[in-house]
């Protein structure tokens, strides 16, 4: 007696808590979801100021050595390249020759790199093979090629184990001052670096031939740098070519020259700005939401703001800047912050409404770009090789035609790059001190993983609770009905009962399997010669419906007929779906947080609300009708194409689903779409509709996750 009391007491806190949670699962899920969304909205307020974590970087501790002499030299190069464009015939090869000449005059080792741009292909099966297997299979692209020019400065006293990469995309065909200015900046820095004594790492300057996009040349060069093909039979890179130019006759080899492991990479670009100040845009998102080390962004920001007086900006959603509700939300937070400050002056939660709006817009775009998994610039190619890289885009107030203005710009830009390179050069180890998992809310503010995970965890927390409570409920329900029936065969019955979930898990699995097949379908569809996106899309829809019917016919229908009891059945099915959804989201959040967060935002409410439509229709009460409407709306919204179009409606000027886009982006979008189809199907078949919808949604997410996982590996 005494003992039992004790043991009960001991058990109680946890068990009681669990029981409490389960019994109030609806309340818990509502609270948690709201708290999760609220936490997400609160993130701009919670953002911390960035700081340079690695002491070895010492940005700005040395005065800049770049002088007007280098700038005037760079101007010479710009002029020569611009003159070339007055007669466009043969401008491309000429410009390569000129760049190569300038590089080698500086004492750098120069080589050209010839590459074939790979057309964007959709390879879902690639996720299951190595990343290098797809090198150059297409013979059709043979005729197209671009030429990168690579110059390497060997560090005078370094041992050549590490290198810093400087990339300037340059489109020789298009030409123009804009294109050549970034070359000018890079050249001025490069010419300085050939003479400095402090260099410890080699410098690689890659002039990427961007006539086939900015990403492709960099990716091709990196691929050849890291995984050279020794046995290419077509002797692509073996030929040497005489680049003839006035009195400059030199052999520039096409073999790739190497330096050591890359420490960091900077991509330079110049854009026409329409703002009032000279600004510097930082683009950091690489594929699959991978970010470069925060220290790299910090150095650039520090040097640009405190040394060169540039305004730094990161990408924002401009439509959010003007939206009313964000503004009002910001005001609410501002007043809240003031209130908190009156309570305790040490709590500095206050943030002005304008700041909040800015932060929210930046955070949203940061989340969006990370979730999409499409790199925002050529720097994305580096991250695949674990090199920290960012793209810097200078934009100027006035046009570049005025020479003094241009010189000033070159000087500032060059000094910034010099400072960054010097900092990275100071670094003994690779970037590891600062954060890799973060969201930027402004160039100088960030939300670290420890903070934003809380919001996500709150959002996801109701899922297991609801699943468990559903399961517990059905267990409670069924024994009472069966007890009198089979008192004698209690043992067997309970065993059967306890294994009942297997059936619903099977259903979930089948749906997931279908989702996976649907997400693989586009690969086969894309094999169809000359077809436009719309027909592809419709073929895809048709095929997925067909495959669903087949699967249902083979696998699902017999079992679902045997187990008649829809009352308990749908609950178990829902709980199985939700738990698998939870596992999927959890895994996803480890791989790519932003995707998981957005997925959770879209799907958690739906997963929780899901209820069979048939029952609701039968119910006739106001509550059930409301629930049905909610279900339908949520279902439609979280159906990926619907989401996509809604989103597009909100932000004007978004391009539609284009097959010509980067394959990853197509892939992820398509994967999402496939999920939605599943869900629509089930909406029509109203038997187990809503639960299956969820599972469908899960499937794309999971396949997406798998895809990303592969990428990551």
């Amino acid at each position: 007696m005494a003992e039992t009391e004790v043991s009960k007491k001991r058990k109680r806190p946890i068990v009681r808590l669990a029981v409490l949670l389960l019994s109030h699962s609806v309340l818990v899920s509502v609270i948690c979801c709201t708290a999760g969304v609220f936490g997400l909205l609160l993130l701009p307020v919670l953002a911390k100021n960035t700081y340079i974590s690695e002491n070895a970087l010492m940005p700005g501790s040395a005065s800049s050595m770049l002088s007007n002499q280098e700038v005037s030299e760079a101007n010479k190069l710009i002029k020569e390249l611009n003159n070339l464009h007055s007669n466009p015939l043969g401008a491309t090869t000429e410009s390569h020759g000129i760049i190569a000449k300038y590089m080698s005059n500086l004492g750098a080792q120069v080589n050209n790199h010839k590459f074939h741009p790979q057309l964007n292909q959709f390879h879902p099966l690639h996720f299951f093979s190595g990343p290098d297997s797809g090198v150059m299979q297409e013979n059709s692209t043979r005729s197209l090629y671009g030429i990168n020019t690579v110059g390497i400065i060997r560090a005078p006293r370094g041992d050549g184990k590490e290198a810093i990469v400087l990339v300037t995309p340059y489109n020789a065909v298009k030409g123009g001052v804009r294109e050549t200015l970034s070359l000018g900046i890079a050249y001025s820095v490069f010419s300085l670096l050939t003479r400095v004594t402090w260099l410890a790492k080699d410098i690689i300057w890659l002039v990427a031939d961007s006539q086939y996009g900015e990403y492709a040349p960099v990716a091709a060069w990196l691929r050849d740098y890291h995984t050279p093909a020794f046995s290419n039979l077509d002797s692509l890179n073996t030929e040497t070519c005489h680049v003839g130019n006035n009195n400059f006759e030199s052999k520039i080899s096409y073999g790739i020259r190497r330096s050591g492991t890359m420490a960091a990479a900077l991509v330079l670009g110049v854009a026409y700005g329409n703002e009032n100040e000279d600004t510097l845009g930082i683009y950091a998102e690489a594929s699959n939401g991978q970010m470069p080390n925060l220290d790299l962004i910090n150095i650039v920001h520090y040097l640009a703001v405190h040394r060169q007086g540039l305004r730094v900006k990161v990408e924002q959603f401009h439509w959010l800047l003007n939206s009313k509700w964000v503004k009002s939300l910001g005001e609410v937070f501002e007043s809240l912050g003031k209130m908190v400050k009156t309570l305790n002056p040490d709590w500095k939660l206050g943030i002005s409404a304008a700041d909040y709006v800015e932060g929210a817009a930046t955070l949203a775009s940061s989340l969006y770009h990370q979730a999409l998994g499409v790199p925002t610039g050529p720097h994305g190619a580096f991250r695949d090789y674990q090199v920290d890289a960012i793209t810097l885009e200078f934009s100027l107030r006035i046009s570049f035609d005025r020479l003094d203005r241009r010189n000033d710009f070159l000087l500032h830009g060059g000094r910034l790059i010099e400072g960054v390179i010097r900092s990275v050069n100071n670094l003994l180890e690779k970037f590891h001190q600062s954060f890799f998992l973060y969201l930027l809310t402004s160039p100088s503010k960030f939300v670290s993983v420890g903070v934003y995970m809380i919001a996500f965890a709150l959002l996801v927390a109701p899922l297991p609770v609801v699943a468990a409570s559903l399961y517990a409920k059905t267990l409670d329900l069924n024994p009472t009905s069966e007890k009198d029936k089979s008192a004698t065969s209690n043992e067997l019955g309970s065993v059967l009962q306890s294994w009942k979930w297997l059936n619903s898990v099977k259903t979930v699995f089948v749906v997931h399997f279908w989702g996976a097949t649907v997400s693989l379908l586009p690969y086969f569809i894309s094999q169809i010669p000359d077809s436009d996106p719309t027909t592809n899309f419709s073929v895809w829809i048709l095929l997925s419906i067909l495959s669903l019917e087949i699967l249902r016919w083979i696998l699902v229908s017999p079992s679902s007929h045997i187990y008649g009891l829809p009352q308990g059945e749908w609950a178990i099915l829902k709980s199985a779906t939700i738990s698998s959804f939870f596992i999927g989201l959890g895994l996803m959040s480890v791989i790519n947080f932003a995707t998981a967060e957005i997925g959770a935002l879209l799907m958690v409410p739906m997963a929780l609300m899901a209820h069979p439509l048939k029952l609701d229709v039968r119910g006739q009460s106001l509550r059930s009708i409301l629930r049905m409407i909610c279900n339908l709306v949520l279902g439609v919204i979280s159906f990926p194409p619907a989401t996509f179009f809604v989103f597009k409606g909100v932000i004007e000027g978004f391009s539609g689903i284009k097959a010509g886009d980067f394959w990853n982006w197509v892939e992820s979008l398509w994967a999402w779409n496939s999920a939605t189809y599943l869900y629509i199907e089930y909406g029509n078949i109203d038997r187990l509709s809503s639960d299956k919808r969820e599972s469908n949604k899960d499937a794309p997410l999971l396949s997406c996750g798998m895809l990303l996982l592969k990428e990551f590996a």
Partner: protein
Amino acid sequence: MELSFTQGRWRYEQWGGFDPLSSNNAKPPGVELWAVFDVPQSLVDVYWRNLTHTLSGLFCASINFLESSTTYSAPELTFKPSFGNLRYGTLPREAVCTENLTPWLKLLPCRDKAGLSALMDRPSIYRGFYHSQRLRLTSSESGSDEVDSGIGLEQTLTVVLQPSSWRTGKTYSVETNIQPSWSISSIFGRNIPGKCVIAKSSNVYLHLDNGLVGELKNLERENAKYVANTFESEGFQSNHAFKISVTPDKVFEEVDYLHGKSTSVIYGFSVEKYSDSQPFDLGLTWKIPVVWSCQQAPLHASRFLMGSGNERGAIAISLESTESSEGLPTSHIIDGRCELRVDIFQVVPWYIKVYFHTLQVFVDKQPRAMADVVDKIRVSPSKDKVSPGVMEMILKLPCGSKSAAFSLEFDKGFLHIDEYPPDANQGFDIPSALISFPSFNARMNFSEDEFLNNSPILSKFQETSPVLSYTEVLLIPLTTPDFSMPYNVITITCTVFALYFGSLLNVLRRRVDEEERILRSRAGRKAGWISQLLSRLSAKLRGRPQEQPTSSLPYSFISFRLVLKILLVASIAVTWQYYFG
């Protein structure tokens, strides 16, 4: 024994790789040490250990790290006179600085106070591109006459410097780019104040290598057409191309017996006649721009890493033929086939787990079977934390081949936490591979011999030695734990483990049925406290004594008091016994 400290890398493409200067003096970055021991096999490792410690103390360097068996290896094929008693080790990361130079200078008779070594101005030496100090001990006991037996010490310092005018002057306009003129005082910031008193001879040599001489001769020929002016070969020092400020005492011309191509020229200057008042200051002033290239090793070797990620990768060594090799009397005709012999020696630390079976060979970009190319291969696989992996290959490449490439795949291993160096995040170094071309001899032939015998450096040049070149050091990033947050990790791990094990133990220990049964039985006989005490006792006997907690406090309290009383009585008895017994 040979020990070398090197900073920077030798650029084979610019500074040449064929002449004795480069192939003898170019060394891998960091410390390289090899030694042959004339002791029984079993003692070799012990002696090596002693040697490393001694040298480490002598040169203020961490050579003692070479003591552990994971860092050194015993090559057999690459170094010729080895019979299993040679040990070879490198420390690629060793930073070389003045602290290493000073002990090296102390071994010189006059230190850096007099003679040539007075030039050793630290800042100017370390400002250069390349700096390598070398120490070589040879024992000549095997010599026939007992007088000569002893230990020879040979010290070499190789420095590649940048003429100061190059550094400061902005040489932008390339058309008028003339080679920077230099003099000893402008390079080193010092002069030679005469010879060291103890020194037998003290000479400065100026070497114009083949390419340059050839170029000059061409120019000369062109000029000769216009100007009726004949240059003698010894008149070089004041020809139209450059001017040497001091008249050389001797001029040596290399004689190439095989074909009368351009050969190199060495000017010898003896320092003996100079003194403090009249220091020796050699200078060279260029008059016209001359472009020449150094003689290259037959194949230019480069080594690089392939792949990315922390899991696996591949090492590739690529050999590209240089232009100079085409016209050289290089090939050995064996069995009617023209072949080029290349030796590769590669040491790989144990945490880079190389799979030697994945060796792929490409010649002229065509995959080849290993047996076609590899003449002999000796592989000793690495043992974890015991010994590094060693690969020695003797290759026979077809003569005309333009390029050859080898790739080896590896997995990256995991280190134990205390095996990481302090700067683990930089990555780990793979020491340079040594590539030698035994069929090429880096030697110079000089026509006049009487002077050469008393000039060690020239006789060194005349020795036959294979052309050697070292590849780059590679940096491999390994998976590195986050050292900055061990506390967090430990805390979180401990918490998780505590929770897990606590609940698991709780579940395992508790037998639900048993408890219920006991409860039921106890409810059945609810008689007096004695029986309860009995049941409690039985429970205790069953091995769960710690289950007696709070609510049964009165009973346990009673028994506790009882025990206390007994103890008290017993202690009283004991003290009584002790004091009064």
